[in-house]
């Protein structure tokens, strides 16, 4: 078990963004995190990656509680993330993004060390080699999302949190990203992904966790989840309430 989330709770004012969330992730899995808007998915990512501190509960990563630690420490411990709305260093070159991830991911090398070769390798891996010297702000959305994944990979994570990497992409781009996610898994990196593209969730996730109103509603294999009555209710509404039923 690489990640174990126990009773995680975070309130914003009176609103519980996540309330008593429990689940765990096994080494080498791809776990899908789904739920309607406002279910607390991104809040959960923010808690795991250290953007915000939980009110209570524990996040056990490789046997150590990392709840409430600073983002850079969590990154160096081996959890990398991407953002729902891409956060890149617009004015910097694609190559420098990767170099930053590599140099600060566990911060031992200087700038003239092996970083350059490694960074070139990562660019090759995600398929951005040709854009190495381009200004990141000039890339297309699909490439920027890819760049974020590359930057996260450069920090050499064991657990990768992908926040809607497929949102806003066209079907071709989506299947390319799915291919990339599979390749990352083959490298032995565990993945948790928030996604609204159900095709992707069904095809590549080993397990799916459904959040609703900050609580875990269901958990299981993708095909089980689609059959789950309460999940259908959450997405489509309570069918028994429809006037035609009466």
């Amino acid at each position, binding site marked *: 078990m690489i990640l174990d989330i126990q009773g995680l709770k975070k309130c914003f004012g009176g609103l519980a963004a996540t309330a008593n969330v429990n689940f765990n992730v096994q080494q080498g899995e791809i776990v899908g995190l789904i739920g309607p808007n406002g279910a607390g998915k991104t809040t959960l990512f923010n808690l795991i*990656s250290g*953007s915000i501190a939980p009110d209570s509960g524990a996040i056990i990563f490789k046997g150590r509680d990392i709840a409430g630690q*600073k*983002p*850079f420490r969590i*990154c*160096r411990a081996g959890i*990398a*993330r991407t*953002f729902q709305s891409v*956060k*890149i*260093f*617009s*004015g*910097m070159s694609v190559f*420098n993004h990767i*170099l*930053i*991830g590599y*140099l*600060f*991911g*566990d*911060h031992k090398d*200087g*700038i003239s060390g092996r970083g350059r070769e490694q960074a070139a390798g990562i660019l090759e891996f995600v398929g951005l080699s040709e854009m190495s010297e381009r200004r990141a702000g000039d890339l297309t959305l699909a490439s920027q999302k890819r760049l*974020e994944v590359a*930057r*996260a990979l*450069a*920090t050499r994570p064991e657990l990768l949190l992908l926040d809607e990497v497929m949102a806003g992409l066209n079907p071709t781009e989506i299947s390319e990203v799915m291919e990339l996610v599979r390749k990352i898994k083959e490298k032995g990196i565990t993945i948790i992904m928030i996604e609204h593209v159900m095709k992707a969730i069904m095809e590549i996730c080993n397990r799916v966790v459904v959040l609703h109103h900050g609580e875990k509603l269901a958990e299981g294999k993708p095909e089980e989840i689609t059959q789950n009555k309460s999940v259908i209710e959450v997405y489509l509404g309570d069918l028994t309430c429809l006037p035609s039923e009466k």
Partner: protein
Amino acid sequence: MKYKIKKYSLYAALIVGILLLVSLPSYTSSYRVIFFTNILMYVILTLSWVIFSGPTGYISLATAAFFGVGVYTSALFSVTLCLPLVIFIGGIASFCLAFIVGSLTLRLRGMYFTMFTFALVQLISNFANWYEVNITGTVGRHVISLDSIIIYYAILVVFCLVLLVSYYIRHSKYGLALQSIGESEEAAAHSGINVTLVKVITFATSAFFMGAVGAVMAMRWTYVDPPIAFDIRLSFMPLLMAIFGGMGNVLSPVMGATIFAYLEEILTTKFPYYYMLLFGGAMLLVIVFMPRGIEGVFRKLQKNNRRESVEKI
């Protein structure tokens, strides 16, 4: 190959420039030496301002505060300690102040940070004034004056140091980190960068040189009081000079500050009555026609050259 030649010729020019500066007192009048001391003061302030504010985009107006702390350190210790030590203590005092202030305020962004740094100058200046009037019972202080050539060399040493440090930071991984912080602090933090530490240390490092140059300048002025030491103009000048020069590499701000300071000196001596008017006019022209400073103009020329050579082919 071409790149290497360019690099070596740049180094050669730099060494010649520094040699010229070192030998300056032997072939010019003492007026010129003082004149160059003033210019170097502005160059140091601008370069150290750019170290932090250039890549991160945190616009600091605290330069006068750190400079003034250096000035007052000099006033306190110039009698008892030797010159290098006074300069060093001036720098360290500013470093510590910037470290404390930075730890408290670098979570503020944009306008709020700028306003705070502006207020800091007023706060410290007024505190110094209050202290002098109520505790020591004086307004100003005398500083041991030194030969203008010694002061010139002291400031030249500080200049070389700040140049080296700027170059090192820009070409190390911390330069990359600072740049990424300027672009997106959140993404930087999630790439493993200790954002707070990098910001605070860099802010304090830039303050070190501001304090050091303040400690030297106090000895040239021989008399200091709070309005002189904490002159708010010294907060704005480095900012304007950096914009005028450009911040894309280490030498642009040096160039900007040199030309700007030279212009100021010429205008104040030749046209004492119209100085502000001319200066303001020049500033407006610069902002309208050279928004990216001297550096931007050079870039444009380079681009045109390249285009012409392409057309010839």
